[in-house]
């Protein structure tokens, strides 16, 4: 796949289909890939990389890149294409300035998963069949590939490549996914347990804004939390309330727009499972207002911007769904 992606990138530049290519660049190690724009086939051949560590979702970069002169080609994994479509729905990307190449994805591997397997000082990894052979400072170790998958990829919702001009590999479809299992587990807890869970998680927040800045749905010109005029601006959570406030409002602002790409949890330096907030709202919206997947198409109306006269009342929450 690596070769096909790089060949395609070089060919697109050489044939003049695009003037720039947005992809991933090699790093110090095999895993620390950085999103980058390449302008020549030469650059592509020497620096571009496509491997199972290319987790970062490139869609959001297109907001700025599609405003520039010339056409940019971009490589998108299935989950990235949902963000790509959603951003177009919000008029944030100029589609005619983008050449989208969808890349079949078998799930991305992530260092957090390797570390969770107890691996330390990881210096290299290669895929052999269904296994991953990992070299570390302390010797070589073989782990099953599926155990090295990033958490979000283990509950992948769809392998479908949306709105691509071209596809490398095979087009996929929606998958049965038990991505709401964790949400359900939390729902099954008592309010006290849930409160304790979220306090312990959110109290880790350092308000680095990585979740917000990486989020394709958080594409505001200026976030309300950065805007002194909004009345809620704050730079650091000076009280536990502000830890809650930031994450509640953020979840709410992306409700119906979040494609569940999982970038927020991937980038959190403090390991907070932020996707569980967004997924809760996705689950609620699906249940209360009918199935909806942000970024799956261009026509459907986001549930927060729609209604039916028969919608359930808020009392189903405040009175308790289970009649508590």
């Amino acid at each position, binding site marked *: 796949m690596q070769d096909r992606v790089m060949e395609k990138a070089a060919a697109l530049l050489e044939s003049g289909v695009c003037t720039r290519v947005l992809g991933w660049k090699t790093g110090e190690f095999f895993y620390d890939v950085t999103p980058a724009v390449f302008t020549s086939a030469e650059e592509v051949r020497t620096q571009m990389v496509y491997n199972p560590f290319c987790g970062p979702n490139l869609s959001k970069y297109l907001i700025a890149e599609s405003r520039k002169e010339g056409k940019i080609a971009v490589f998108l994994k299935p989950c990235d294409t949902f963000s790509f479509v959603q951003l177009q729905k919000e008029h944030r990307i100029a589609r005619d300035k983008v050449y989208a190449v969808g890349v079949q994805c078998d799930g991305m591997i992530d260092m957090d998963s390797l570390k969770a397997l107890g691996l330390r000082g990881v210096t290299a990894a290669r895929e052999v069949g269904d296994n991953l052979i990992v070299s570390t400072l302390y010797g070589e170790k073989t782990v099953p590939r599926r155990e090295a998958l990033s958490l979000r990829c283990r509950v992948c919702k769809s392998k479908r490549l949306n709105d691509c001009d071209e596809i490398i590999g095979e087009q996929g479809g929606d998958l049965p996914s038990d991505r709401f299992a964790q949400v359900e587990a939390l729902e099954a807890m008592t309010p006290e347990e849930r409160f304790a869970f979220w306090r312990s998680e959110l109290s880790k927040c350092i308000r680095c804004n990585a979740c917000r800045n990486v989020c394709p749905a958080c594409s505001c010109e200026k976030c*309300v939390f950065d805007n002194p*005029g909004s009345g809620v601006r704050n730079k650091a959570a000076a009280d536990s309330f502000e830890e809650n406030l930031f994450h509640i409002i953020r979840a709410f602002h992306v409700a119906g727009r979040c494609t569940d790409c999982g970038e927020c949890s991937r980038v959190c330096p403090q390991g907070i499972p932020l996707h569980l907030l967004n997924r809760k709202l996705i689950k609620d919206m699906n249940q209360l207002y009918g199935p909806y997947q942000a970024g799956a198409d261009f026509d459907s109306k986001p549930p927060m911007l729609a209604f039916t006269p028969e919608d359930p009342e808020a009392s189903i929450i405040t009175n308790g769904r289970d009649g508590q």
Partner: protein
Amino acid sequence: MQRIGVFVCWCGSNIAATVDVEKVAQTLAQEPGVVYSTHYQYMCSQAGQEMIQNAIREHRLTGVVICSCSPRMHEATFRKTVEKAGLNPYLLEIANIREHCSWIHKDKLTATEKAVILGRAAIAKVQLNAPLTAGQSPVTKRALVIGGGIAGIQTALDIAEAGFPVDIVEKKPTIGGKMAQIDKTFPTLDCAACILTPKMVDASQNENIDIISYAQVEKVQGFVGSFSVTIRKKARYVDETKCTGCGLCTEKCPQKKVPNEFNLGLDNRRAIYIPFAQAVPKVAAIDPNYCTMLKSGKCGVCAKVCTAGAIDYKQQDQLITREYGAIVVATGFEPIRLDKFDEFAYSQSPDVVTSLEFERLMNAAGPTGGTLLRPSDGSHPHTLVFVQCVGSRCDGGEKGKSYCSKICCMYTAKHAMLIREKYPDTEVYVFYIDVRTPGKNFDEFYRRAVEEYGVHYIKGMVGKVTPQDGKLKVQASDLLGGRQLRIDADMVILAAAIEPDKTARPLATMLTASMDTNDFFTEAHPKLRPVESPTAGIFLSGACQGPKDIPETVAQASAAAAKVIGLLVKDSLTCSPCTAKPDELMCNGCSSCEKVCPYGAITYIDKPFRGPNRTTLIRRVAQVNPAVCQGCGACTVACPSGAMDLQGFSNQQIMAEVDAICR
């Protein structure tokens, strides 16, 4: 720094009995920004208002808080008061310490404490109030009436009479609508054509009225006072300016087998036709679905016989775009399709007809020349059965319409009477569930049908109609008599429910006018604003808003016209300044706000902004039209970036109130 004045009203003893007004005034005087605080017996009195005005001048107040009754009571009064003293009327806030405090609490201490907090919230809000100026938007002095039935004609005539130009858009080749198809009208039994056609002629001759027939609205832009409407005028293949309406072509056209829609398919017309003799405009039209010339290029008879040279086979659809200040919807109704009512054998026997078909069968200009003949064999019918509520008053959904169609009881009485009058040898049965006759002279009319004309009114329904041996076997129940009836009828006439015209739904979308679940247009208020749509500048006339008979339709048509005239006489409209306002620097152009706006007040433009390092960025940003925005605030919450705010109820203002209350 703000200079705020606080005025606490006693409202006689209404407030003062439970709230220590003096203490409230004293406590609020300590609030930051307050430079003057006082109390008085009746703030709304002449003396009280003068007190406020003097304080504004003497203390150079920048904001006024009045602690008194509900703002719903006197906000307008006090706004005028402060405006007269030179203060912007929107620099006023009212703390409701009567309805929300003194009247609901008995304990003076508690009530006083609460009054102070409510006052504090108002002070906190007024600190952030900005002077607002009501905007003005110009009014295009021309109205559009969509639909050329009696409702549309009446509305247009009334508007035109008042001196304003008005266009009627009619989808058929002639105006006239359903009323043109009706024979006689209840409760007077005068001829429908005799009262309608003069109005049609009036409309065509009125200098202020432009009839755009055979046309449909294609696009609506703009807002109250300045709509821009694109109308598609369909090709009729006849030059309207040349055609004299002589009708020669319609006699010579060799294509004779075209179902005549004016007679509901009970007879045929030619491929080139004039819908009926009194059509306005009296201009022929070619039906492209049947014209041999248009379909195969062979024929051209009509062009040969036309002495005026009006035939133009190459005519194209024409798009007309015009500006209007107001739009009246008069799209009317249609009888429902009866395919779901097999039991009445409508699709099995030509002798089972709808009431509207029956109108044509009784009409002197109809297919039978006004002689009542059975459609199947042209014989004279002796026994006629009327069935009421066919598809009306059902349980909704599959069964039929949930509403009462309102007009059927009366027109059925009319039909029954007309038959009995003209053909005394007939037996006429009317099967009814209820007979509903509220209306001037309506019940008297119905009673005449029973008492003078001997119509058999039977409480009960028809269960089944079976065509057999040239008769219609009607099985029905007489509930009051407690017997099952089996009648061998010659004709069965069904009072089909009526529903809004099919074109209404897409039109409502274009107009951003709301509809109910039955596709009737919703009125702005069911009682107090029955002829206006909630969308400003859109008015409702006739059955598009709900089932109506002719007198009601005409009344509503004139009412809508009066509303339109009231709008068009203004040179400009004053809009409430409490509207949404986007901060372009924050706006992402994501369209969330636009999607929740019930008024279509939000549009987007691409606008250049200064980027970093002397660059220019083109960004899509929201624009709110203050003339259309009604200030609900739905957009402000839909906006994730907080770019959209509501003037007069801004985020900061509401949060300041929250802070003050929770402090």
